[in-house]
């Protein structure tokens, strides 16, 4: 006998998108049931797990979040484990090793908290530069939702319009900007000498004061993999508030099927518990917010006679246009100490290099100073030299202080060939693993060759670099976008302007997958803004029902 659950709104996924929507709907008086595939753990347990890790796992930022058997995700522990879940292919397969976690609270557990907005130009690539797509609405339509998202998460940022990106805002940031650490200041000064402006990042991190029930940042510099004090917004911090408002959260509930019915409305979702026991969950509206990989996977898995290509997929665009910001990294050795690591792991970026007429020819790029403390990396490297005693100490100090990392993140165009499909390989519950083909394409490669790499070398030398090594293999930025692309035309897009599936009136697919273009900045704030817009549409839809 199949068990059943029910609520007005069923939200699959407890990350930032699911949580923002759940709270909006609860505030409007509706019942909400959230389903989370992974487990729920306390912050201190993650903090302690992280601090107890052996130093060799330093490059695996997910190591504090071991995947559960029933809710697997990419495990970066080794090349073997990394290849187990996500099936990656194509010229840039390595660049789609997306780090996300399937835990209650989702991947904001280990995000940097950066909250860039798209610019008006980022949303009109086709009409301005003849590449990519145009959004179905303009920046002015999105702006109020950006502001609401900033207040919902608690974003700090500069009050000086000269330092804002873009300086088109209806309200000030809820909190003032955080100061730069010495390394970021050095980078900022070098950029200024080259005529470039390194901007203080808008970030979902409490600066100087508390926000909601969370304390101000005190600079632990472990935002990735976890803020130990909750000064950085993460969706996990809102779970108790959602429950206090009456929301119900079921964990270890792996949704594997979306069931459609009359009028192609969604009737139910079905989930497995860790033992494979199935439960059917009914509701009025359904939100699938499992991130840009798990959501298209679930849509494709749910193919039925009404929707033979998968739920929401009459356009054949589900799982296509997979985007991220392909990343290159410059390893820099400096003559003088930069003292990386004071403050949060990221706090600024040069944004102006993402914009310009060149976008008809090649991608723009965001350039930034990676402020993640380098003491562990320095120590590991120094130990390899065979030095001992005071000489070892001195080398650790030198490598920690006098090395730095600059990061280049490129704008990728939506390309239907960058595609997620279902692999023939199955996970422990018999659910297909995602297969993704990925090619960053000539638009990005050209940028790296003639634009971004020369620029970052110039910046490094201006900082006083004695050595600069820029990678040539693109890597992931973990900003998963495009798989449920938004558009006005149901023939070539998956969701409408409210993230509602064109094919199903009561199914919402908000988040990064709905983004029409990617820009160069981190995607979360745009995802959150789309989530709030979708929540408004849901409240209106229930009011008319």
């Amino acid at each position, binding site marked *: 006998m199949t068990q059943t659950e029910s609520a007005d709104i069923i939200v699959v996924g407890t990350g930032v998108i699911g949580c923002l929507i759940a709270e909006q709907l609860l505030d409007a008086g509706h019942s909400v049931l959230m389903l989370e595939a992974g487990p729920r753990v306390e912050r201190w347990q993650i903090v302690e797990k992280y601090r*107890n890790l052996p130093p060799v796992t330093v490059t695996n930022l997910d190591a504090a979040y071991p995947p559960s058997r029933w809710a697997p995700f990419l495990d970066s522990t080794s090349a073997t484990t990394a290849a187990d879940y996500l099936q990656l292919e194509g010229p840039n397969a390595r660049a789609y090793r997306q780090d996300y976690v399937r835990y209650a609270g989702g991947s904001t557990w280990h995000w940097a908290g950066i909250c860039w907005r798209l610019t008006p130009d980022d949303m009109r690539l086709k009409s301005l530069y003849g590449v990519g797509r145009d959004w179905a609405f303009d920046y002015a339509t999105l702006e109020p939702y950006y502001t609401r998202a900033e207040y919902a998460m608690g974003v700090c940022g500069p009050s000086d319009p000269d330092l804002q990106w873009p300086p088109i805002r209806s309200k000030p940031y809820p909190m003032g900007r955080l100061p730069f650490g010495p390394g970021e200041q050095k980078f900022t000064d070098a950029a200024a000498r080259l005529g470039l402006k390194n901007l203080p990042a808008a970030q979902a991190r409490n600066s100087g004061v508390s926000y909601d029930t969370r304390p101000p940042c005190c600079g632990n510099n472990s935002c990735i993999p976890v803020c*130990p004090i909750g000064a950085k917004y993460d969706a996990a911090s809102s*779970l108790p508030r959602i429950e206090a408002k009456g929301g119900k959260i079921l964990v270890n509930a792996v949704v594997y099927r979306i069931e459609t019915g009359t009028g192609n409305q969604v009737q139910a979702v079905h989930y497995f518990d860790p033992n494979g026991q199935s439960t059917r969950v009914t509701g009025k509206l359904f939100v699938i917010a499992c991130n840009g990989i798990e959501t298209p996977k679930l849509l494709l898995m749910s193919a039925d006679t009404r929707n033979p290509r998968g739920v929401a997929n009459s356009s054949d665009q589900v799982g296509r246009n997979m985007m991220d910001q392909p990343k290159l990294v410059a390893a820099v050795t400096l003559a003088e100490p930069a003292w990386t690591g004071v403050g949060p792991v990221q706090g600024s970026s040069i944004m102006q290099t993402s914009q310009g007429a060149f976008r008809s020819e090649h991608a723009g790029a965001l350039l930034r100073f990676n402020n993640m403390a380098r003491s562990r990396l320095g120590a590991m490297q120094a130990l390899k030299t065979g030095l001992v005693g005071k000489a070892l100490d001195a080398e650790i100090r030198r490598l920690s202080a006098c090395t730095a990392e600059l990061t280049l993140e490129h704008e990728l165009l939506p390309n239907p060939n960058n595609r997620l499909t279902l692999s023939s390989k199955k996970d422990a519950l018999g659910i297909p693993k995602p297969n993704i083909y990925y090619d960053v394409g000539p638009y990005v490669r050209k940028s790296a060759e003639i634009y971004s790499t020369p620029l970052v070398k110039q910046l490094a030398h201006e900082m006083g670099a004695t050595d600069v090594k820029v990678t040539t293999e693109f890597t992931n930025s973990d900003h998963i976008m495009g798989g449920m692309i938004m558009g006005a035309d149901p023939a070539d897009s998956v969701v409408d302007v409210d993230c509602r599936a064109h094919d199903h009136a009561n199914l919402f697919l908000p988040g990064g997958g709905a983004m029409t273009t990617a820009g160069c900045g981190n995607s979360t704030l745009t995802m959150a803004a789309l989530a709030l817009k979708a929540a408004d549409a849901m409240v209106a839809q229930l009011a008319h029902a």
Partner: protein
Amino acid sequence: MLRRALFGIAWLAIASPQAMAADIDPLVAQGDYLAKASDCTACHTAPGGKAFAGGLAIASPVGTIYSSNITPSKTAGIGLYTRDQFAAALRKGVRRDGANLYPAMPYTAYAVLSDPDIDALYAYFMKGVEPVDGAAPKTSLPFPMNIRLSMMAWNLIFLRDSGLPSDPAQSAAWNRGRYLVEGAAHCSTCHTPRGFLMEERSGLAFAGGQVGAWYAPNITSDKNSGIGSWSKPALIGYLRDGVAPGARAAGTMGEAIEHSFQYLTPSDLDAVVTYIETVPAVENAKPGDRFDEGKPASDLASTRGAVIDDATQGAALFQGNCASCHAPLGQGGTDGYFPSLFHNSTTSAPNSNLVATILYGVNRTTAQGQAFMPGFGGAPTDSNQLSNHDIALVATYVRAEYGGSGAAVTDTEVATVRQGGPSSPLVLIARIGLGVGVVAAMGLVVVLWRRRHRLGAKRGFGE
């Protein structure tokens, strides 16, 4: 000069009539000051509500009571009160319609307020406060607490009927300090322990009392048990900023500083301290200075990387929840924002304050800025929710490691603080209305309301 004049005009143009009244009428300004000194806002302004419009829900053992609207609204507030009716409410606990107030309103302390100060407060509440016509929710309590007349008996026993005559043997500052401490600031309401009838126990004035979840410690001049070891500047700094060597204000005292003490003039703060320093010493704690216990310590070397079991869970909880701010040795921050956990009265004293601080956190704003520590589950919306057992483990660990005391905290103690502090069997007597117990229980119940109101606000009951 011209610029200043222009600014003045602009300011007047946008200022409300009430603000102007306070600006122009010295009596209104004096009343504003006295209202702050009396911390009226603590009860009469609900969180997020309009000033003095009441409606703060106060959790009590016998039901919820709501603070009243004391704005000059003629329909919902006290706009129709004459000066003498206002005075009777403050000093005798009698409403305009003749009904008795519950001593959730501290009229037993306000009884000492002078006639000129009553005049000033009246002027302020009539002219300096914005009228709000929204009525606060009505308080509706079960029998026998609904019989307000029975308060007369309690008043006969516990309400003093005159002010405080000046003591010519003492300085003007001492007399002013006594007037503020015994009257407006009503310090003894929390800091003096209660007897069976919930009266303030004679001979134990300011020796420390339980205030719901929090403990208001001994503030007598005893060097070990009280604050006799503090310098005068330290005491003044504490009342103004909430910070002193070895002590930080949180809970109800944090709010008293935020809403009241920080606004006192330097001479009034000096007066308060002058008087408090002369309060007769009461020794009621173990030997040793409660502000100087404990030492830096860390179990990181033995626990990092080790398997967590029952014996090491306290250390793991400390490292995962506390050490990221209070530092691995418990030494706090270099700039003093994060207090050290040793040489700290909260970790050394065997009262409820360590558990209350962990559960409810700290949120105190003064001219020095905000001091904030998140609660770990005292409010259902706290982002980190620790169980009673985990709080007991970490509190036991902190006491032993940093507080210089081996006293273990039990799960039951945490549960008690979480539900708002210890209750009393007298409440039960009141509930079942046992003859002679009723009047005494009435006293208990109303005093408990008074003592718990701020806790209620903290726990979200005000919403």
